[in-house]
């Protein structure tokens, strides 16, 4: 009996310990080891995949670039305004993220239009206005065909391409990709599923804590 009690107490302690250690989000994408010499000793460091520098026009026809995302975490996706399949569902879910972080200056949302011909800034502005969102929090961006499809494939690892056999001519995945302040990929969530988006918001809290970005 005595031992049993001891055992139970030990388990309790163990439980308490494991609760205390906050799990960190994984770092996704490619990585490469590099050897560095620090204080005369060789140390192996890891270089993680980061988002390549970019510059696009947002819905106000203002250039926004990777500089505007410095010291911020952000969520990004690929869509187009005429899309009537997964995009409305994604952006209905993204609205929840927008509402949650509306007043948090450390969080941004970046939506790339893959309809480079049709979605000029004025179209994106009309879309954003009808959705009821502010430019400095949620940017809808227009870029050249190459820049948008390259950043999707190489930086964010999201499939997006033009396909003549598709009814609307454009195909893309519905991922919401979470990027940290060092421009590293920290999560990818199915933006068409409300429970995945809820999970993402929980992960965003973890990331904000890890980055020491408290509100204000």
């Amino acid at each position: 009996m005595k031992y049993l009690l001891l055992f139970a107490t030990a388990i309790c302690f163990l439980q308490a310990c494991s609760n205390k250690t906050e799990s960190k989000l994984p770092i996704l994408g490619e990585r490469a080891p590099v050897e560095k010499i620090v204080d005369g000793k060789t140390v192996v460091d890891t270089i993680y995949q980061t988002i390549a520098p970019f510059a696009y026009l947002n819905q106000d026809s203002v250039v926004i670039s990777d500089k505007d995302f410095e010291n911020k975490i952000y969520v990004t996706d690929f869509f187009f305004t005429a899309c009537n399949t997964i995009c409305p569902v994604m952006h209905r879910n993204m609205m929840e993220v927008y509402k949650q972080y509306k007043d948090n200056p450390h969080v941004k949302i970046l939506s790339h239009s893959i309809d480079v011909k049709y979605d000029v800034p004025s179209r994106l502005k009309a879309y954003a206005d009808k959705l009821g969102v502010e430019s400095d929090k949620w940017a809808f961006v227009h870029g050249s065909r190459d820049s948008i499809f390259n950043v999707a494939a190489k930086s964010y690892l999201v499939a997006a391409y033009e396909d003549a056999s598709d009814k609307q001519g454009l195909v893309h995945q519905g991922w919401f990709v979470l990027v940290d302040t060092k421009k590293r990929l920290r999560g990818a969530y199915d933006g068409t599923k409300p429970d995945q988006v809820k999970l993402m918001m929980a992960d965003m809290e973890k990331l904000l804590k890890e980055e020491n970005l408290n509100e204000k």
Partner: protein
Amino acid sequence: MRNRIIYILMTITAGAALFQSCSSEQQLDYQRYFVNGKGIYEKNCQNCHGANGEGLGKLYPPLTDTLSLTKNKPALACIIRNGRNEMPANPALAEIDIAQVIVYITNSFGNKQGFYDQERVKGDMEGCK
């Protein structure tokens, strides 16, 4: 005298039975339309208009305004078939499909407008521009 009473009673019973079966048949039709309409809605409408007919901001209108649905009911079939503004046309939907989805929409999301059959849709479609 007694025969007469029995006769009247029987007539009433028969009438009631007939009425019952009629209304239950319409009830059945309504349910069939509603269930099929739900499937059609989920496949063709839900992405934009939402699972609860809530729409999306000012991009896609909600389907919860029962007054506006009543007022525009004769136009619904045309809008569904031919599209309007951002809304794409649905040439693949037959009149029966349109009737079913109208029954689903006008009896969900807080709407309660009853049955709307295929014949009415046919009539509405003649007025399409």
